[in-house]
């Protein structure tokens, strides 16, 4: 992996050059931090990770799958905007790689692929856990990025090149990204304070009464799944026109396993009727079921589902407590 150097005095000029080349989306601080298109280098906010995940730019909240008119189906023209995502943290980069597995490998989802294929991912490495709920170090994340900025020195960033797209960027912006003999050590890639889930194996905990405290504090409001950078469940719905009931469109919306409606089938039967079953399902999908299929945990330890939960249900604490209680027995 090639390592380059970006001098801090060139940082603003570098961002300006990115903006002049294409649309740049980065964390922006308003009332909360969220990903937004930026106009100036000063819009970039790197003090804290975005409260809202980046997934909405690829797996969009509402997507027209196809239009229909009198038994004829037409697929909307799919645009593939060239965009740079700047300032993504390790958790969010890995989250993108997990959604890639779902929407680009298992199924070839043209809507996701079109949004994703011309996107460049430039990361910003956390020097320490940006939130007290983080636990990415416990989730054994991989290096996944086009470029990654490491902010370890007073005068310069070290920039790792992680892909072909990264090489393209390095070449294109070679004026700012200079050769260097420096390397980022494995030690420097660690994120202190983000290892609070030492053992994420929950296979034998399903019937443990320890989950109950989380269930009792759950409103099933779906904040966790909406804020999760990896949750990818959706709902499909047909909308028709009043002037012609055979004309309309099929739309895909974000949905959530926390809802009864999500598992409702014909005859109004609901598979996961109890809040407890729905509560556990999300965590088991994140830490167990996904691994069975893809050999990696879906969860990337960003902690948003805890920080954004109105009652701060901390499933990491709950798991740790269950493990401790089990060890005592």
């Amino acid at each position, binding site marked *: 992996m090639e390592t380059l150097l970006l001098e801090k005095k060139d940082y603003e000029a570098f961002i300006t050059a990115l903006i002049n080349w294409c649309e740049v989306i980065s964390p922006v601080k308003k009332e909360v931090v969220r990903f937004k298109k930026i106009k100036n280098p000063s819009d970039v906010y790197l003090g804290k990770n975005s409260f*809202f995940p980046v997934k909405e730019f690829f797996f969009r909240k509402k997507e027209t799958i196809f239009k229909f008119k009198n038994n004829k189906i037409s697929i909307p023209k799919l645009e593939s905007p060239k965009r740079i995502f700047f300032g993504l943290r390790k958790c969010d980069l890995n989250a993108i790689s997990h959604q890639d597995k779902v929407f680009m490998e298992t199924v070839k989802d043209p809507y996701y692929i079109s949004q994703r294929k011309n996107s460049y991912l430039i990361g910003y490495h956390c020097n320490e856990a940006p939130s007290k709920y983080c636990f990415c170090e416990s989730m054994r994340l991989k290096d996944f990025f086009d470029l990654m900025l490491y902010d370890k020195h007073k005068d310069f960033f070290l920039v790792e090149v992680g892909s072909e797209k990264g090489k393209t960027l390095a070449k294109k912006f070679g004026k700012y990204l200079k050769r260097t003999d420096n390397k980022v050590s494995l030690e420097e890639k660690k994120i202190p304070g983000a290892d609070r889930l030492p053992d994420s194996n929950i296979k034998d905990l399903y019937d443990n009464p320890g989950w109950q405290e989380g269930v009792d504090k759950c409103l*099933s409001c779906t904040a966790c799944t909406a804020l999760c950078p990896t949750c990818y469940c959706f709902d499909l719905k047909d909308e*028709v*026109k*009043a*002037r012609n*009931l055979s004309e309309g469109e099929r739309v895909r919306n974000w949905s959530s396993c926390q809802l009864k409606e999500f598992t409702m089938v014909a005859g109004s039967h609901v598979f996961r009727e109890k809040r407890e079953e729905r509560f556990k399902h999300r965590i088991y999908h994140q830490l167990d079921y996904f691994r069975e299929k893809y050999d990696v945990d879906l969860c990337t330890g960003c902690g948003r589902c805890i920080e*954004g939960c109105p009652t701060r249900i901390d499933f990491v604490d709950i798991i740790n407590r269950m493990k401790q209680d089990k060890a005592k027995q």
Partner: protein
Amino acid sequence: MSEEKLKVGFYGITGCAGCLLSFIFNEDELLDLVKLVDLKAFPFVKEVNPSDSFDYVFVEGLVASNEDLKVLKELRENSKFLVSLGACASTGCVPAYRHYTLKENYEHLLYKKIKELEDVNPTPVDMHVKVDYYIPGCPPSKEEIKTFIKKIVRGLQPKPNDNPVCVECRRNGNECLLEHGKPCLGPITAGGCNSVCINGGFECWGCRGPTTDMNLDLMIKILKSKGFDDKFIQDRLTTFAGLKLPMLEKIMKK
């Protein structure tokens, strides 16, 4: 789908007619919607309103007089399906708040002045007749009324939205108002409104009534932890959906 159009009626009993207006506000498709059905009766906008038989009748408002009850019972008898349109018809809404006030607090304002006025307890329609479908909300979403009509004319069964308001609110990228210390009832209130109030910065007052899945016990605990007292919580919960929260008294005592 049969060739014959569904015979439909829109009626209002005691209410503000806002729910009927909500249907009319579908300007983009209104003329097409009206053509989909045989709109037999709509006294709010039509002069001639035969009311002998309906497939679907939409009723707005609540029962607040003996005359209301008579009209409602006739509509029920003459229709295959009765749809409760709006919060008054479905949950009792603001008028039903009267259940939680003492008679001496209000009767001098009106009922003692005008002797002919009957003092009937305002109640939602399902306390008097069988209701087949609910389109809740104060006012109900115009989209939902439109979708309802498009479904029934295709022979499909409309499904009530039982997801909390939070689902649409989170999708809309709003910040949680509970986090800002506001007494938002979104987590226990049925969605379908596209979280319109929260989008505008106002907390949810629960006008669409509770979800079947609500965690009311926890909702009250949260409100208490934010510093709201019992009286405030009781008032807020009962403003729109009081009569549909039958277990409220028991929970408030905890």
